């Protein structure tokens, strides 16, 4: 049996050479490049009014100015703080709650209906409520993101922990692990794939809730900046911030997926 590794000559499975990968990435995102060219083209050719859609080059210039004058950083940091705090809270509380619900029946009986009731509620409906409770500052945004993101994280952790194989729990027990140790050593790692999936959903939701709450009730943040610039008719700058938010969401998701692939490397 030990020679079975040698029976199959190594198939090329490693990462492709750097240049090949670069070309691959370029090809993958070429539709985006095409869209950018199209955007610039239709505005430059006058097919679309500049009042409705400033050209991409104008938008990029406005982004540069916003960055240079510091507005982008100030508001970006403010948004990042709110998003990170809300999401982190949701991961800690939601993850623990989901696993506790899967492990202890009474917790499930008590919390299950609450989670189910909260699930279909459009979280943006809570914006006025969170403002009423915590005012216009960071607190209300963090609470909103926490409440909204907790649900997918809880459900992911719950389903993941429920899918934990009985035989794994029993193996750990017979190898001398206490029940509580099994929770840490077996149930949590078993829940990880689904939990990480839930967190990815929560990450996307964070951006939705962040920007919409800042747009409606805030005096700082990227969402606020979009609203402020829009009302002032400074459309190229407004588009610039929208673009920045879109890229932030995209990179956050990419980065997160890289992280997940690392953590779940054992799945092959």
């Amino acid at each position, binding site marked *: 049996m030990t020679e079975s590794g040698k029976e199959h000559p190594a198939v090329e499975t490693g990462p492709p050479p750097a240049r090949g990968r670069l070309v691959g990435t370029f090809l993958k995102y070429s539709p985006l490049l095409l869209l950018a060219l199209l955007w610039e083209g239709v505005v430059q050719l006058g097919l679309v009014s500049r009042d409705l859609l400033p050209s991409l080059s104008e938008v990029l210039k406005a982004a540069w100015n916003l960055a240079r004058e510091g507005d982008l950083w100030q508001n970006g940091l403010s948004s990042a703080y709110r998003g990170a705090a809300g999401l982190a809270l949701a991961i800690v509380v939601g993850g623990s709650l989901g696993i506790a619900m899967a492990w202890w029946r009474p917790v499930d009986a008590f919390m299950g209906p609450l989670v189910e009731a909260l699930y279909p509620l459009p979280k943006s409906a809570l914006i006025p409520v969170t403002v009423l409770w915590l005012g216009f500052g960071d607190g209300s945004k963090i609470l909103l993101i926490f409440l909204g993101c907790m649900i997918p994280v809880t459900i992911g952790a719950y389903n993941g922990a429920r899918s934990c194989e009985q035989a794994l729990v029993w*193996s750990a027990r017979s190898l*001398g692990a206490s029940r509580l140790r099994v929770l840490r050593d077996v149930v949590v790692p078993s829940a990880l794939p689904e939990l990480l999936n839930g967190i990815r959903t929560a990450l996307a939701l964070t951006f939705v809730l962040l920007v919409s709450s800042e747009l409606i009730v805030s005096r700082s943040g990227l969402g606020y900046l979009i609203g402020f610039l829009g009302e002032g008719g400074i459309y190229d700058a407004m588009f610039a911030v929208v673009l920045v938010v879109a890229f932030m969401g995209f990179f956050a998701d990419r980065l997160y997926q890289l992280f997940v692939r690392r953590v779940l490397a054992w799945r092959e």
Partner: protein
Amino acid sequence: MFMFDSRAAPVKQQIVIDSVSHRYRPARGRAVLALEDVSLEIAPQEFVALLGPSGCGKSTLLYLVGGFLPVEKGSIRVEGAPVAAPGPDRGIVFQHFALFPWKTVRANVRYGLEKMGLAREEQERRAQGYIDLVGLKGFEESFPSQLSGGMKQRAALARTLAVEPKMLLMDEPFGALDAQTRSLMQSELLALWQKTQKTVVFVTHDVQEAVLLAQRVVVMSARPGRVKAIVPIELDKTDPHLFRSPAFAAKVDEIWSLVREEALKAQ
């Protein structure tokens, strides 16, 4: 002093199962009587096979001995003490290996040693010893998903053996393996048992496997599981051509006729 005679007497039987019944309650649907009034005694260093059609409760009986399920009716004593919880004295091996998929082979084998509180170097030394024993040298850093079925079961066996249990509870351990690997693993298990003289309780539905490995075959009836017959196997287990001998064939026939009725009932 004679009052204490019964306590002072040496424990002859290692596992004593006395009039055990077990009701299985699925999450949905009605409770099923899985075992009814099962009594069985297993001596130290004995190799016993629990044989029966699927659903006869043979695995349930094993899980009860393992302490994974609560004994509700009757009693099970291991070395004189009632079974209350799983413990490292009774090592378990499952059909689908139950390796921790997020741990490497080495980390899997080391898991029980960590729980024993051994020093790190001792853990490493012992883990390596058992990895070598089951023939997984060179695969220490592999994850279970990178191993074949046979290698996974070897890793699981190493993990169980590493904590040096007195008893091995094996739940159809070779049931998920291909025929060649199964046959190989059977002879390796036999050699291991002869070398270490552990008590083995081996659940299977394969008559040949039971006759090949066990000293006694406990034939169980279809649901609810009862002990239908206990057949001693007095064959020379060291004979590499055992399975081609007439005595082997006769034993298989004898047991197969017992199992056959039950298998038909279970259909």
